[in-house]
């Protein structure tokens, strides 16, 4: 496991009064005039690890996608690092792992090609990758333990391995602001722990991480704050809900058996039902 570093500018890491990494103000999102989120306001300070929780269909992915401008807001506004989304240009600082079934297109592409494509905004046009860029790709691959599959086609990987390719793709550009939409889904316990180590290291370097999760798993100790979405809005914002209390909450969809106190064994068969092949 090599070190994964971020491109956080030094002043950003230290200045306390810096703009929040994400600011969502009174946002509403509708698909085909069906309102999915409304009146959502949220600030994610730089350096925070925020978990977004909620049952299936509660709008977690929609919120993350709205933060990145991937779905239009029907009202309200979003700022990234103090810049309104429309004028935001520092996309090299953003790492996004979509909630996705597969990492492939219609033509074969190697794991390394897909991971390197995460650097697209950082690369110089008409130039080959620099040594530093290649090293970053190598580190990203090691962080998800896929270095030995780098030359295989992503089509030949399992669902969980493809998910890990997408995580590596987000790491490859060394961003400092991450949006991970259920990065653990379909990922085995060892890789979950590896991701937890990566997130720990990124966090120590000052990275901001927005994590959509069903099962905190090995990430639980890292999460500084969590929000719970339900009925189109934020119904909880604060300390991560205790598993017991969370399960007791009305309307909570019970997706995991009651907590096994031993985190190592809890991480094993306890993950969410994989929704990919």
């Amino acid at each position, binding site marked *: 496991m090599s070190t994964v570093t971020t491109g956080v500018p030094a002043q950003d890491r230290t200045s306390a009064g810096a703009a929040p990494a994400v600011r969502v103000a009174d946002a509403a999102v509708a698909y085909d005039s069906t309102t999915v989120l409304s009146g959502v306001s949220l600030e994610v300070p730089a350096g925070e690890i925020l978990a977004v929780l909620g049952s299936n269909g509660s709008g977690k992915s929609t919120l993350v996608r709205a933060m990145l401008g991937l779905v239009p807001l029907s009202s309200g506004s979003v700022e990234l690092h103090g810049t309104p989304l429309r004028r935001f240009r520092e996309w090299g600082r953003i790492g996004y792992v979509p909630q996705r079934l597969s990492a492939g297109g219609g033509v074969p592409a190697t794991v390394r090609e897909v991971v390197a494509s995460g650097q697209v905004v950082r690369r110089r046009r008409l130039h080959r990758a620099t040594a530093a860029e290649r090293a970053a790709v190598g580190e990203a691959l090691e962080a998800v333990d896929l270095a030995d599959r780098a*030359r295989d086609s992503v089509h030949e990987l399992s669902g969980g391995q493809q998910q890990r390719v997408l995580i590596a793709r987000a790491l490859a550009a060394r961003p400092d602001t991450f949006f991970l939409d259920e990065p653990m889904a379909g990922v085995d316990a060892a890789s979950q722990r590896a991701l937890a180590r990566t997130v720990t290291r990124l966090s120590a370097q000052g990275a901001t991480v927005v994590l959509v999760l069903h099962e905190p798993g090995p990430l639980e100790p890292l999460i500084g704050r969590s929000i719970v979405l339900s009925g189109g809005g934020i119904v909880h914002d604060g300390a991560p809900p205790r598993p017991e209390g969370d399960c007791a909450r009305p309307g909570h969809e019970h997706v995991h058996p009651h907590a096994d106190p031993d985190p190592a064994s809890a991480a094993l068969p306890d993950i969410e039902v994989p929704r990919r092949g």
Partner: protein
Amino acid sequence: MAEMLQLDFMRRALLAAVLVGMVAPVIGTFLVQRRLALLGDGIGHVALTGVALGFLTGTSPVVAAAIVAAIGAGLIELVRVRARTSGDVALALLFYGGIAGGVLLIGLAPGTTTATLTAYLFGSVSTVTSGDIVMVAVLAVLVLATVGYFGRELFVLCQDEEAARAHGLPVRMLSLVIAVTAALTVVLAMRVVGVLLVSALMVVPVAAAQQLSRSFRVTLALAVAIGVASALGGLSTAFYADVAPGAAIVLLALGVFAAAVAAGYLVRSARGMARSTRDAAGAPAEGTMPQTEQGGVASS
């Protein structure tokens, strides 16, 4: 071969075929990756309307086709985004509109019949003039330069459109770049293989190449090699056996595809056997496998 090269019209035909065999698979690789393999065909039909429009207005059919095809390609992007139609339905609309428009307009043009369209439907590489060659060469340079310049962005876009947007890439502009580049390629290939077979040269070499490759770059390079070889081989065959050049080129490419399927099957089963024996020997994966920096296939 020497006999063929002594003829002026054959030299021009070969040049045109090589350019098309080279360019069509380049843009075709991106289209296949984007799962829009039939886009070329759709644009080809629209180009037919352009050809007819050229005859009707007395301008160069190729220039008119290039303009109309580019507009059609832009429209298809618009339909895809705005009308909430899936890509294949948008393509079907384009097909029908293009062919109907072509037949309608050519009937209106004085002194032409639908037979005039035949040269464009099936290609007429033997009547390529030196002016055509210049045109084809310019289009080829344009297409290759565009793909070279936007290559990385286009890869991300075709691989994962949502990721492209999350990288802040100008997705709509890049989609248009792909569509218009495809349109220019179609017009370029029209004289050689004809509108009906134009997308074959964009798709078949790519389909053959991906049987043999695990990497996007290698697929692209291999597809170009197969495209050029098919174009040269098909045209020579047509010359000596006196068959239709477009059909010969495409059938040859399909032959390569069939061979590639068989070869790919053999390669994979050999590789699979190597992998399972290695795993059975209990060799640890790390250290025994080639590590990352070795590969020459790293994405640009």
